[in-house]
């Protein structure tokens, strides 16, 4: 069994309650940090751990913390990003549902490290059940003296609140999230200034993903050096992977970074293979925004070496033959899935979720959705395929926030790797309405991958 740092006790009955969570060693990190460490020492441990932001960007958490401005007499804020909305990602929902105290403990330690006296957990509004769970857990923690005034006699005060969102993917972008928390539309801000200098209410602010904050707990308990020993290279620690699509056992898995992709898909310890005895056609490794890869490149690098679930290995080969770790939203497509239809579906998503601030994204996502729709429904032209590439290039890099890139990459990568399937749709408008392109030329390398499983 692989090592579990976040989900070790997930199956313990009652682990969502403070009592059971404490019996299993919960809130040790709060006691250790507040009683024996200075805030700077906590930051130092997180730096040593090599923890990288688990929300998608993968920026080192300790470094992000060290950028926080600390002017005299100005409040500082920690805001947890629980706006989980990236298609394919549902790990934060899982963590908050089953072990809410892991997040709250992480929030207390992290707020202490940053000197925040008021912290917020911004949860997407659709997760109302999780909001209720967190509110209950916060009340429990407060009763036990882990929140409020003079926590554990340390002189440190902290209030923690849960803020519901209103249903907008864009609020997962940190500056849009802060706008939303201020009661406004979720329009991302131009950076600089970065939130570390001017964030919530213009005050220095750190925004971290749920999983990043929960990971601070084992880092403080065992020390940053111990955490850094788990994983591979610069991908330290464990990562929650949300597995969905055509898998035998979809769900949330905690893996040690460095696990081979093939093992993750086919091993019975993890996803158990492709559902209904089908074959793998493609994967999206890190949530809908990252490039889609055909089966052969999902399992192996271009040089034939196995691809691993790590920040480096997943991005090996750049966008030509690689993808990204993103938020760890792993989507598997079987041989019956249509890449054109899926790309259209994702484009519709980005068009729907574009905040409308930047023209390239507002207009471009709409054009891509329309062009993909006509290819999918048998009205496409051959020139449409290059038109899509052209539009995607004109969005990428030309917007305030990364939503534009996130909309462009799935389209560009689908055409890069599955161009023949797009052409087939254009050439066979009637046929493509009733049947699917199937595996076609990806079958050969996939057959090999399946045989290694046996």
């Amino acid at each position, binding site marked *: 069994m692989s090592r579990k740092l976040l989900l070790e006790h997930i199956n313990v009955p009652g682990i969502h309650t403070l009592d059971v969570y404490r019996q299993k060693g919960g809130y040790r990190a709060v006691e250790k940090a507040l009683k024996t460490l200075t805030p700077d020492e906590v930051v130092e441990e997180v730096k040593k751990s090599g923890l990288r932001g688990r929300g998608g960007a993968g920026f080192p958490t300790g470094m992000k913390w060290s950028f926080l401005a600390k002017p005299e007499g100005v409040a500082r804020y920690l805001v947890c990003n629980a706006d989980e909305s990236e298609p394919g990602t549902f790990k934060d929902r899982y963590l908050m549902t089953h072990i809410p105290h892991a997040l709250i403990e992480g929030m207390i330690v992290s707020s202490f490290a940053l000197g925040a006296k008021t912290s917020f957990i911004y949860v997407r*509004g659709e997760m109302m059940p999780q909001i*209720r769970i967190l509110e209950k857990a916060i009340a429990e923690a407060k009763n036990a003296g882990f929140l409020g005034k003079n926590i554990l006699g340390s002189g440190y005060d902290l209030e923690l609140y849960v803020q519901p969102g209103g249903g907008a993917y864009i609020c997962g972008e940190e500056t849009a999230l802060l706008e939303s928390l201020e009661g406004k539309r979720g329009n991302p801000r131009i950076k600089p200034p970065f939130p570390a200098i001017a964030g919530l209410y213009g005050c220095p602010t750190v925004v971290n993903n749920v999983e990043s904050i929960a990971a601070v707990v084992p880092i403080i308990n065992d020390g940053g050096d111990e955490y850094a020993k788990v994983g591979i290279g610069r991908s330290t620690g464990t990562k929650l992977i949300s597995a*969905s699509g055509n898998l035998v056992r979809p769900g*949330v898995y905690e893996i040690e970074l460095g696990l081979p992709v093939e093992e993750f898909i086919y091993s019975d310890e993890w996803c158990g293979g492709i559902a209904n005895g089908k074959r793998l056609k493609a994967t999206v490794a890190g949530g809908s925004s990252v490039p889609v890869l055909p089966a052969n490149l999902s399992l192996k690098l271009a040089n034939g070496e196995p691809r691993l679930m790590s920040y480096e290995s997943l991005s090996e080969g750049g966008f030509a033959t690689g993808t990204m770790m993103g938020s760890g939203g792993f989507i598997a497509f079987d041989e019956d899935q249509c890449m054109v239809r899926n790309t259209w579906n994702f484009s519709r998503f980005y068009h729907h979720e574009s905040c409308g601030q930047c023209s390239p994204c507002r207009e471009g996502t709409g054009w891509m959705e329309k062009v993909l729709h006509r290819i999918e429904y048998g009205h496409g032209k051959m020139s449409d395929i290059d038109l899509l590439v052209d539009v995607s290039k004109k969005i990428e890099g030309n917007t305030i926030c990364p939503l534009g890139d996130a909309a462009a990459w799935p389209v560009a990568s689908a055409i890069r790797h599955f161009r023949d399937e797009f052409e087939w749709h254009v050439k066979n408008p009637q046929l493509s309405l009733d049947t699917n392109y199937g595996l076609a030329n990806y079958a050969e390398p996939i057959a090999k991958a399946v045989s290694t499983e046996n």
Partner: protein
Amino acid sequence: MLKVEEQQPVQFSSALVEKFEEIVKRYPEGKQKSALLPILHEVQAELGWLSPNAMDKVAEYLRIEPIEVYEVASFYSMYFLKPQGKYVLEVCRTGPCCLVGAEKLMGHIEKSLGVKENEVTPDGLFSWRGVECLAACGYGPVLQIGPEYTFYENLDEKKVDDLIQDLRKK
């Protein structure tokens, strides 16, 4: 749930105003606008949707301009700017759920309820719509029903029919 027609004047109950006060306390002095999204959720839970009159009342309570409420309510997808059915079935229509049959399920719901997306059944009980990713991709197809956003996972046609029957009986 009380149904508020377009022009009906709105009066918030004292229980609701108490909730507002609890929410506003979370934020620093003068930053009460931060309470806007949570308060709109509370209002919608009580009234079923956000009528212009209700939004004006929220603006008055938070001491902000009405436009500041409208622009927020129209930006976020969870707020209803038109009356809905008592139960709004919101089905995830994004990629991963479609890999496991969400589109077929939406077709089935349309047939079962006999109304198109965003329309209300004649008895006022139901409306339905496709929504974007609900972060439950491993348990698809999924749907949610407000105001507490109860979740229904791993759905098929039979489970949806049973759910609709149960809600009818309530």
